C-alpha cells in the first residue's frame, strides 16, 4: 500500500483539517465532529441541505459545501457511513428555521444512519425531510433488495437542490426538485484497478492486467461483470447504452453529461471517453446542454470512470447554471 498519509486511523481527521486550512473563508468543521459546514451556517430562512457518507470519495462531499450547494457534509470513516450523532450535529448546525433536507446515497448504512439522525432531529422539533439518490443502473431497481446505489449523479442533486434552496424555496419545493433530479439521472461506472482502504491495507479485489470490471460501485466493491479490457470507445458505448436502455430519452431531448474519474484515471482518458459519449448522443439526436469532466465522486485511487446523464428541462437547466461557490463545483 503506497499512500501519502500519517496514521491510517486519523486520515479523515487530518484531511478535514487540511480542508479547512484550504478553504477557511468558505467552510468550518464543527468542533469535535467530522461535519463540514458553510462558514455562515445556519442561513436563516433558507432550507438547509445536508449530505455526506463515507470518506474516500473526495471531493465528495465536503467539496460541495458552499453557497449554492450544500450547507453541511458529514464525513464517515473511509467507505463507512457516518454515525447518526454526527449527522444530527450537521442538521442542528444548518437549520435556519426553514427545515433541513437530507440528500442520501442509497446504501443501507447511509440510509439507516441518516434516518436515525432525522428521528433525533424531529424529536427536537426540527423539520427534516430526505431524498435517496439511486442513479446506478448497474444495480437492479427492486424493492425486494437494497435497490440501486447512489453514485456520481448525486452531485447533480446537490447542485440543483442547492440552487433551489438558495432561491428561497420551501422545504417541500426543494425536496420536490431533488426528487425530480433523482428521477431523471442515471449513471454507471467501470474500473481497471481496485483501491485500498488505508486502515485495511489490502486491495478490495483483484483484477488481471487484461481485465476490467463493469458496474463498479464507489466503495471498492466488485462490479456486476468482469471482462476483457476494451477500447475507450467500446467502454463509452457500453456504459452509455446501459444508461440509455434505462432512460427513455428521445431525439430532441436535452441532457447534462458527467464523465467522472474514480481516482487515478488521467483527465486525458476522461476526455477521450467524453468524445465518444457525445458522438453517441449526437447520433441519437440527443442534445447536450452542459458537460462536466473531472473527479466528482471518487473511490480512493481506483482507476476507472463513470458516465452520468441527467435529462434536463428548463427548470433543471436554470438551477444547474445558478451560481455555486462550493470549492469543487464553481459555477
Amino acid at each position, binding site marked *: 500500500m503506497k499512500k501519502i498519509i500519517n496514521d491510517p486511523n486519523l486520515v479523515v481527521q487530518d484531511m478535514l483539517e487540511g480542508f479547512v486550512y484550504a478553504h477557511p473563508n468558505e467552510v468550518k468543521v464543527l468542533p469535535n465532529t467530522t461535519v463540514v459546514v458553510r462558514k455562515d451556517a445556519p442561513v436563516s430562512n433558507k432550507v438547509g441541505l445536508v449530505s455526506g457518507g*463515507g470518506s474516500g470519495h473526495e471531493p465528495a462531499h465536503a467539496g460541495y459545501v458552499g453557497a449554492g450547494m450544500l450547507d453541511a457534509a458529514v464525513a*464517515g*470513516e*473511509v*467507505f*463507512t*457511513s*457516518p*454515525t*447518526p*450523532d*454526527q449527522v444530527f450535529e450537521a442538521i442542528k448546525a444548518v437549520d435556519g428555521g426553514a427545515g433541513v433536507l437530507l440528500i442520501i446515497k442509497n*446504501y*443501507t*448504512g447511509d440510509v*439507516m*444512519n441518516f*434516518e*436515525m439522525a432525522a428521528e433525533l432531529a424531529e424529536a427536537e422539533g426540527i423539520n427534516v425531510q430526505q431524498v435517496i439518490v439511486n442513479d446506478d443502473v*448497474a*444495480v*437492479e431497481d427492486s424493492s*425486494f*433488495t*437494497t435497490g440501486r*446505489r447512489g453514485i456520481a449523479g448525486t452531485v447533480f442533486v446537490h447542485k440543483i437542490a442547492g440552487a433551489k434552496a438558495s432561491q428561497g424555496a420551501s422545504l417541500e419545493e426543494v425536496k420536490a426538485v431533488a426528487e425530480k433530479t433523482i428521477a431523471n439521472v442515471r449513471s454507471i461506472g467501470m474500473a481497471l484497478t481496485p483501491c485500498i*482502504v488505508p*486502515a*485495511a491495507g*489490502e486491495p*478490495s*479485489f483483484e483484477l488481471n492486467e487484461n481485465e476490467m470490471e463493469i458496474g463498479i*460501485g464507489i*466503495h*471498492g*466493491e*466488485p462490479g*456486476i461483470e468482469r471482462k476483457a479490457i476494451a477500447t475507450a470507445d467500446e467502454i463509452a458505448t457500453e456504459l452509455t447504452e446501459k444508461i440509455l436502455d434505462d432512460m427513455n430519452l428521445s431525439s430532441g431531448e436535452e441532457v447534462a453529461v458527467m464523465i467522472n474519474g474514480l481516482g487515478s484515471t488521467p483527465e486525458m482518458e476522461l476526455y477521450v471517453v467524453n468524445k465518444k459519449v457525445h458522438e453517441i448522443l449526437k447520433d441519437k439526436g440527443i442534445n447536450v446542454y452542459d458537460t462536466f469532466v473531472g473527479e466528482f465522486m471518487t473511490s480512493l485511487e481506483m482507476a476507472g470512470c463513470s458516465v452520468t446523464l441527467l435529462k434536463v428541462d428548463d427548470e433543471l437547466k436554470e438551477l444547474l447554471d445558478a451560481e455555486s461557490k462550493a470549492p469543487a463545483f464553481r459555477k
Partner: protein
Amino acid sequence: MELQVADVIQWMEKSNDSIQANKDYLSSLDRAIGDGDHGINMARGFQEVVSKLTTSDYQTVSDVLKDVSMTLLSKVGGASGPLFGTAFLKMSTTVKGMEKVDANQLGEAFQEALNGIKLRGKANKGDKTLVDVWEPVVEFFKSSDSIDANALAEVAKQAMESTKELEARRGRAAYLKERSIGHLDPGSVSSYYIFTALSEVLQKGA
C-alpha cells in the same frame, strides 16, 4: 440462568476479544462480498464499548446495555452501526430498570432487538444478513425456559454457517446477486461471536 451487571460487562469484553482477534478475518469476509470494512468498524466500536463500560459504574443491566448501544451507534457507522446499536437499544428498553435478567427476560430482549433490526434494515430471514443469526437465536430462547449454553453456541454457529449458501438481498452484498453465494455474511459472523461470548459467560455462571 441469570445475568447481572458484571456478567453483561464480561459478555461485552469477551465479544470484543473475539472481534479484535478476528478483525482482519471479518474485513476479508466483507471484502469478498462488500466493501471490506466490517472488521474495522466492529473492532472500532467494541473497543470503545469496553473502554466505556470499564470506566463507568452501573446499577442496572439496562444502563449497561444503553451505553453499549450509544457507543456502537456513535462509533461503528456503516450498516452494522445502526443495526447493532438498535439491537442493544431495544434490549435496554425491554429490561429497563432491571439489576439482573433471567433467561426469559433475555429472550424477550433479544426478540425486541430482532424486531428493531428488521424494522431498521427491512431485511427478513434468508436475505443473508445478521437477521439470519439473530432470528434462530431468538427462537432458541423461546423454545425453552432453561438455556443450555453449549446449545446456544451451536445454534448461533449453524445459523452463521447457513448464510454461506444464501443469495444476498439486503446490504452491499445484494449488488453481487448470485455472486454472493458461497461466502459467509460478515455481520452474521460478528453476531455469532457475540452469542458465543454470551454462551461462555453463561457457562461460567452455570
